[in-house]
């Protein structure tokens, strides 16, 4: 079967789609040695991320085992994770 998504580090709470994935489909991916499955709530375009755990509001979003930003609302697993629901914590000249 063609690879559908990649989780880079075991501590990540997001996966990256390596194919165009559609809402309602069940996606399998490795987290370390273990295979996990998730039903997608939204379409995930190639290269975009989806949550593999429920992420509470204002929590760290983790990819590569490192923090890539914070959630702007609750992001349930299977949902698209991108600029509409996470923010960067760096280079924020707009923050006073």
């Amino acid at each position, binding site marked *: 079967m063609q690879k559908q998504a990649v989780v*880079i580090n075991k501590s990540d709470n997001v996966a990256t789609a*390596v194919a165009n994935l559609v809402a309602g489909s069940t996606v399998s991916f490795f987290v370390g040695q273990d295979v996990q499955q998730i039903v997608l709530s939204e379409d995930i375009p190639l290269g975009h991320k989806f949550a593999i755990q429920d992420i509470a509001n204002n929590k760290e*979003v983790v990819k*590569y085992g490192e923090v*890539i930003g914070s959630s702007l609302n609750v992001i349930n697993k299977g949902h698209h994770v*991108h600029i509409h629901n996470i923010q960067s914590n*760096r*280079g924020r*000249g707009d923050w006073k």
Partner: protein
Amino acid sequence: MNFNGYLRPDGKVGIRNYLAIIPTSVCASVVASNIASQIPKAVALPNQHGCCQIGADHEQTVNTLIGLGKNPNIAAVLVVGLGCEGVPIAKVAEEISKTGKTVEVVIIQESGGTLKATAEGVRKASRIAREISLLKLQEFPVSELTLAVECGGSDFTSGLASNPVVGTASDILVNAGGTSILSETTEFIGAEHILAKRAKSPEVGENIFKIINGCEQKAKLLNVDIRGGQPTPGNIQGGISSIEEKSLGCIYKAGNSPIEGVLAYGEAPQDKGLYVMDTPGQDIESITGMLAGGATMVIFTTGRGTPTGSPIAPVIKITANADTYTMMSDNIDLDASDIIEGTKSIEEVGQELFQEMLDVANGKLTKAESLGHHEFGIYKIAPTF
């Protein structure tokens, strides 16, 4: 592992044999380009700088022009000045000539205008071109190579595959005694703690934090969110959500070697090994800095696709995005999408890339070279006055 290159009088080794026509200001750029167009193997470095710059910004332009002239891919130099610009024409020529290379000067105001300066320049340049055509290739170990690693038009495949592939090739070179330069300070924001852990000494680690903090502070001075500028709209469309995410993918280009030192823009490494250079994330200006620091070859990863080349060095392009490779195979040398498909390992493709580097060091033209891509730009750090 050896390659055939050109030994320069200062002991450095080039993999190309260009005559550089260097304008010392925007006002001399057209004449420099005119001269270069007449001479085989001549390359002009037209730029919009050189006058009404002050302080560190002025110094950086002067040092960059000198560094480019010293680059080992350059066999000889013709400096073209207007005559009244801020960049000291004689100093640029004198500093470059310390390498032992032939350096000549043409000054437009002294020659008597465009036509006479062009004629004088073509006469001088054609004589130099004949002189450097006599240089013979000689065999050298790969430790004589200095690699610049760059990423541009990044998407999700950059951090997953193409940047780690470049990191593998960079580590092979460094382990063989060569030199590699990682740049794009903006794209270290959020990944500085990982880089700093690899610093050779606490001082180098502090310098890594210092340049990244400096870059972030400059962005903050503009009172806006860096997102949209970095990551770019294309990065965001490609799935990158924040500068932290972009940075964490970006730094894979430097493999796992220890970091020997932090270089200012255009500064040459003092020794072999992996160095970090303080440059912007904008590809062209970043590459110029590393070339001014003596890099002779550029490896450039892309996700979205980019045509970027350089007037003075081969740029090897690699993507792991299968669609991008199909769309832009005119521009992209290596397809690493097998990694995303899961049919090849990063290590395997890293070995293939290193072989490609050796071929290119031996004279194989990259796609950017064969299409005449000569993108060039110098990083400014203050307004022009």
